[in-house]
C-alpha cells in the first residue's frame, strides 16, 4: 500500500481498534436494552421538520397514516432481515467487515463520505435549533426556497449555536452523552404533549369525535404549500422506509446489532420507528398546522408548550448534533495526523457551523435524507452480496483481505456506477434507491463472477 494511504489506513485502524475483534458471547445484550436504545435514538430534532413537511407537501390524512404504518414496517423488516443477520453472524462493525471486503482504501473513502454527510446533518440540526433561539430575537426563519442565508443575523445565530455545540462536544462528549440519555424520554414527551396541546386550537373536541374530520380538512388536507411538490402514499411510505437507509440496508447498525443475542432483535427497532417516525411525525404535523403551516420549528414548539417547548427543540437539536459531531470528528481523525481529539472536533464543528448558515440543508431536509441514504446504500449491497451470495455462487469471499488489496476496484466501480445511474434515473428521488440497490447487488456479483473466470 502506498505511503500516505498506508498511514491513513493505519490511523483509521487504531481509532477503531477497540472493536476490531468480534463481540464475545459474554458481551451480548438483552432485548430490553435494544428497545431502549432504539427508542432514544429515533426521536430527534429532525422529527420536528419531517412531520411538518408532510403537511406542507399536501399529504392526505389517510395516505399519511397508511404510509407511515407500512413504511416503518418495511424499515423494521430491513433491520431485521438484512442488517441483523449479518451483524449477528459476524459480530463485527461495518467498518471492520467492509475493510475485509473492500480494502482499507475504499473504507477510507466510505468514512470520509460519512463524515461529510454527518457534518451536513449536524448543520441542519443547528439551523433547526436556531429557529428556537431566533424567536427571542425576532430573527426571520428562512423561506422554503432559501439556499443562501438571507440575513447576517441568521448567519450570526447559526454560527453562535454551532460554536456552542462544538464547545460542548470538545469539553466532554462522554459526560454529555449521559445527559443526552436524560433528555431522550423527555424530548419524546415534548412531541406528544405539543401535539395534544394544540388540538383544541384546531377545533378537535375533547371526546375526539371529530379528530378524523379535523385531520382530513385542517391538518393533512391534501393541499401542498406554494412551491412544494404534492406527496402521496408512495412518497410517505418510501420516505419512512429509507429514512434510516444507511443504518439498515446500508448496514451501519451492525455496530449496534452485533451485540444482539439473535437476529430477531432487529424487530426491536419498532420501538424507535413507531414512536419516533410515526407518532412524533404526526405530532409535528399537528403543530405546524396549528401555526398556520409556517415552517418554523421554534414557533411550533413555542406556541404548543411555551419556553419548555423551545428548550425541547434546542435540546433535541443538540442531542442529534452532539454524536454526529463526534462521529464526524472520528472520521476526520484519519486524515489529520497527530491532531488531538479537541482539535479534530473543532475542525468538524467549524465545518458544520459554516454549513448550518446555509438554510438549504434545513428547508430541503427530506431530500437531503434521501441523498444521504442513497450515497451509502451501494456499500450495503456490496457487503450483502459478498456475505450471502458469494458462498452460494462459489466466489471467493474477502479477496481484499486475503490478497492484500488496498482497493477492491469492482466494489468502487459498482459504488460510483450505481450512484451515476441513480442520479440519471427519471423517477422521483425517493424511489431511486430501490432499483439502485438491486443494480449494485447484481453488478457486483457479475463483476466478481467474471473475475472468477
Amino acid at each position, binding site marked *: 500500500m502506498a505511503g500516505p494511504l498506508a498511514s491513513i489506513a493505519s490511523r483509521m485502524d487504531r481509532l477503531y481498534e477497540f472493536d476490531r475483534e468480534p463481540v464475545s458471547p459474554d458481551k451480548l445484550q438483552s432485548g430490553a436494552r435494544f428497545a431502549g436504545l432504539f427508542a432514544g435514538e429515533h426521536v430527534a430534532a429532525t422529527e420536528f421538520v419531517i412531520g411538518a413537511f408532510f403537511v406542507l407537501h399536501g399529504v392526505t390524512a389517510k395516505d399519511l397514516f397508511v404510509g407511515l404504518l407500512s413504511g416503518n414496517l418495511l424499515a423494521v423488516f430491513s433491520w431485521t432481515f438484512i442488517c441483523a443477520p449479518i451483524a449477528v453472524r459476524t459480530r463485527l462493525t461495518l467498518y471492520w467487515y467492509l475493510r475485509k471486503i473492500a480494502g482499507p482504501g475504499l473504507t477510507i473513502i466510505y468514512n470520509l463520505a460519512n463524515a461529510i454527510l454527518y457534518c451536513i446533518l449536524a448543520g441542519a440540526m443547528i439551523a433547526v435549533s436556531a429557529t428556537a433561539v431566533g424567536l427571542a430575537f425576532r430573527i426571520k426563519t428562512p423561506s422554503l426556497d432559501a439556499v443562501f442565508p438571507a440575513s447576517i443575523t441568521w448567519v450570526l445565530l447559526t454560527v453562535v449555536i454551532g460554536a456552542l455545540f462544538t464547545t460542548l462536544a470538545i469539553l466532554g462528549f462522554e459526560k454529555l452523552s*449521559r*445527559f443526552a*440519555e*436524560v433528555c431522550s*424520554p*423527555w424530548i419524546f*414527551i*415534548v412531541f*406528544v*404533549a*405539543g401535539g*395534544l*396541546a394544540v*388540538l*383544541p386550537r384546531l377545533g*378537535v373536541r*375533547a371526546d375526539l369525535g371529530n379528530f378524523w374530520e379535523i385531520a382530513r380538512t385542517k391538518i393533512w388536507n391534501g393541499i401542498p404549500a406554494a412551491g412544494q411538490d404534492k406527496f402521496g402514499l408512495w412518497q410517505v411510505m418510501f420516505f419512512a422506509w429509507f429514512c434510516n437507509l444507511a443504518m439498515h440496508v446500508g448496514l451501519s447498525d451492525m455496530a449496534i446489532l452485533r451485540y444482539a443475542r439473535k437476529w430477531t432483535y432487529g424487530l426491536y427497532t419498532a420501538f424507535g420507528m413507531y414512536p419516533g417516525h410515526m407518532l412524533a411525525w404526526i405530532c409535528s404535523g399537528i403543530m405546524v398546522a396549528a401555526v398556520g403551516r409556517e415552517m418554523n420549528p421554534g414557533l411550533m414548539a413555542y406556541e404548543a*408548550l*411555551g*419556553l*419548555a*417547548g423551545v*428548550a*425541547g427543540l434546542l435540546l433535541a437539536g443538540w442531542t442529534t448534533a452532539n454524536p454526529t459531531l463526534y462521529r464526524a470528528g472520528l472520521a476526520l481523525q484519519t486524515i489529520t495526523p497527530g491532531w488531538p481529539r479537541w482539535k479534530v472536533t473543532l475542525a468538524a464543528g467549524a465545518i458544520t457551523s459554516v454549513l448550518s448558515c446555509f438554510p438549504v440543508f434545513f428547508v430541503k431536509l427530506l431530500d437531503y435524507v434521501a441523498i444521504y441514504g442513497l450515497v451509502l446504500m451501494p456499500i450495503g449491497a456490496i457487503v450483502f452480496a459478498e456475505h450471502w451470495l458469494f458462498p452460494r455462487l462459489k466466489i471467493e469471499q474477502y479477496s481484499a483481505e486475503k490478497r492484500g488489496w488496498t482497493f477492491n476496484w469492482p466494489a468502487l466501480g459498482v459504488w460510483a456506477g450505481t450512484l451515476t445511474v441513480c442520479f440519471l434515473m427519471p423517477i422521483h428521488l425517493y424511489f431511486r434507491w430501490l432499483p439502485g440497490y438491486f443494480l449494485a447487488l447484481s453488478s457486483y456479483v457479475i463483476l466478481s463472477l467474471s473475475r472468477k473466470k
Partner: protein
Amino acid sequence: MASLAGCLAAPVLHFLGKLSSDATKLLFLAASAGWFVFATFWFRRK
C-alpha cells in the same frame, strides 16, 4: 416518572378544557424541571 407523567398531564388537562393555555405551559415547564432534576440524580446513581 412522576415528572414525566406531570408533563403529559398538562396538555391532557388542557385538551379536556380543564386548564388554560398559559397554565398548561407553566405546568409543563415545572414538570420538565422536575424531570431534569430527579432524572439527573437517578442517572448519576445508576
